[in-house]
């Protein structure tokens, strides 16, 4: 159990490091937009990348990309 005398200080250093990194991330503006990424992942922008669809010919400005219904 004496290993704890080393492991605990090590964990404290790691915690300090984590807080420092988080502080840097906040300061550099990475947390300014907390909503955007949550939404952007849900948009189906990949219609023209899916092979075998009829819209493959006209590319991204086709205008007839099938929306996901419900």
């Amino acid at each position, binding site marked *: *159990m004496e290993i*704890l*005398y080393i492991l*605990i200080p090590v*964990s*404290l250093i790691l*915690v300090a490091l*984590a*807080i420092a990194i*988080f*502080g840097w991330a*906040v*300061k550099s503006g990475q*947390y*300014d*937009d*907390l*909503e*955007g990424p949550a*939404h*952007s992942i*849900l*948009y*189906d*922008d990949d219609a023209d990348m899916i092979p075998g669809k009829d819209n493959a010919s006209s590319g*991204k*400005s*086709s*205008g*007839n*990309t099938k*929306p*996901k*219904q419900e």
Partner: protein
Amino acid sequence: MTDAQTAQDQVQQTEANCFHCGERISPGFRAELKIHDEHRPFCCYGCLAIAETIVTGGLDNFYSHRTELARKPSDFDESQIAELKLYDDPELQQEFVFSEEQDGSTCQQAALSISGITCAACIWLLEQEVNRLEGVVSFSVNHTSHKAQLVWRQDQTPLSAILIDIRKLGYQGLPYHEDQVKAQLHKERRSALFRIAVAGIATMQNMMFSVPLYLGVYSGIDSDFLSLFRWVSLLMSLPVVGFAALPFFRAAIRALKIRQLNMDVPVSLAILGAFAASAYITMFTTASLESDVYFDSVAMFTFFLLLGRYLEMQTRHRHLNSDAEMSELLPATATRVSDIEQQEEQSIPAHKIRTDDLLLIRQGQIAPADGVLIEGESQFDESALTGEYLPVLKSVNAEIHAGTANVENTVIIRVTAPPKHSRVAAIVRLLDNAHATKPRTVELADSLASYFVAFVLCAAALSGLYWSLTDPNHAFAIVLAVLVVTCPCALSLATPTALTAANTALRRKGFLITKAHVLEALSETDDLIFDKTGTLTEGKLELYETNIYGRYNEGQALAIAAALEAHSSHPIAKVFLPFQSIKAKNVRSELGKGICGQVNGRDYWLGTYDYAVKQSANDEANAKKHFTPHAGHGIYLGDGRQILARFLLKDKVRQDAKEVVKQLQKTGMEVHILSGDHEFSVRHTALELGIKTFAAGESPSEKLDYVKALQAAGRNVTMVGDGINDLPVLSGARLSIAMGGASDLTKLNSDAILLNENLSALATAFITSRHGRTIIKQNIAWALLYNLAMLPLAAVGAVPPYFAALGMSLSSLIVVFNSLRLKKR
């Protein structure tokens, strides 16, 4: 088309709402577009144009992504394009455009603030569209602040082309100006987030070291390790007490300085007390299981409270698209002329306007500064300031206010006050004063907390005194036990949790609370005051009746009127926009009277009664008998011999207004109308809705006096408004509610916002507020009961440490679950 089909179409039309903005489509208007293989109706050509832009751009997925309806676009014509083109002026760009090197070529960078964004899909649409433009390197919009970062190549695309493109989608992009308030909010958000992270990480670490301590109670633990775990916990709690919890300490000190006890005082006391007690035990007693440490509770308590306050702050900031404020009211540019004769024009940024400058204001432009009209004659739309939706006639020597729009002819004004000192700015200053005199709402928990804190301090002191006389060895430990056991966790959670639950419930119904005292103030309201235009009514003119007196049928008369009005930019002209089918020639407008011109080779006069029958051979008295008196505005169409048609225009009362007013009156509150409009139309609306008390023709400061007089008489006043002119009175009332369509400045300064302009949400809010208040009272009663029951036990030294910790958590949990009941409603 058969009659049956026509009828069916009409039913569909009258019941249909605009696919883009959700507004009711006025009967007879028809505009459709095929989206996702279905024909969708639109309420105006503006919405249709935007939908066309979106669909032809292949971005029709916007309509399946979106979760909120889009905002109805304002007019977009040549004059606005010309205004946006001014942003290409290098002198103007100096202020917000920066050049940088990228991939070996020069790029320009600018921050824009975008208004009109209603949900995340809007941002998706904007980013897709703008990033596709030639010359745009990158364009991204922040979901919270609606601030956009644009990097583009000026040599390929001028800035105005990008701004026009944004405008075509129905949004407005303007240069972003960082001011002190915005910078402050920004800093506040970032530091709050960092404090939460520190408290959160410390809580997790503390938990890790506390579990062995808890287990140690049952299975035994080496005293060396016991001491080690305690010291490490102490170390981990230091950043929590010394940094994360600082906002509570500061607020507590501020309250004590003005001799008040608020909720932050017991919170600070609990944090410091528990920490001091645990630190004392760790440092000065030999490690044993008889005494307990509370480091984990300190960290967790701080973490949860910080989280609660952060969420509260987020809701408050969410609906302030802080961009707008002044820049939305006043144009960023002005056209300066050297003198009346030469009219040597020069575009200048608005902040360079000096007193005595001569400014040219064209049709459709907004006056950038207060001034006196020295050349020309025109009508000005002052609705932004006064809420009056009909323009006011201005001739030479008339005062022109900044923020009002010129609707007819080009005029020249001499500046009397630069934008900073203009009337809009004056209203904002009046607002600051009103804020200062706003009756302070002492929250229930806060007022209780003062007594509670005083009581706990006395009890701790008394028990300390007693024990130091009888058993000095245990005195200190017992005083600390009293402080820890009475830790007001549950008490301090009582209000915020109930508020959060009520917020969520009301938000779903379209009522957004932005300040803490709203729930309480709502439930205590005696007097509910509406500003008429835009709250009880829809705030825009609508054709509601057409009377025919001549040889034309309704459709023909409307077509003639629409043809004439197509040449006018008067707000009344917009009413006829949907009926345009034929063209008019030789159109002349006569200021303040009407408009005349040729349609299909015949002359027609459209305007006031006198104007339309000026050429008439009919006996005037005889003709007047035909026309029953009416509320609203009558527009007459004459053909040179007689009146052909009368169009009645009215600011329509909202559909649900009558029902809501009745419901509210039933709950025993007095409903008032306080309006800047003419007495006649106010009286009519009041009568229609069954409202007995009303005041008409009131200026912003008179409105404020009205509310102040009521409040001086001891009434609790709630004000519902939407215009800039309502700002002072909104801030003066104990509780202010802004309509969702109000200007950002108004929303920023009100306590609650009625989203979706749905009045019935207001009635719901009053009911929920009463329920929420009951829940808060229950919470507080429970918290106090628990703490008071434990206090004597702790004072006699009979509470074992693990029981104190368990009880504290349990009583907090009960409070949280009780609050959650609000959400279910």
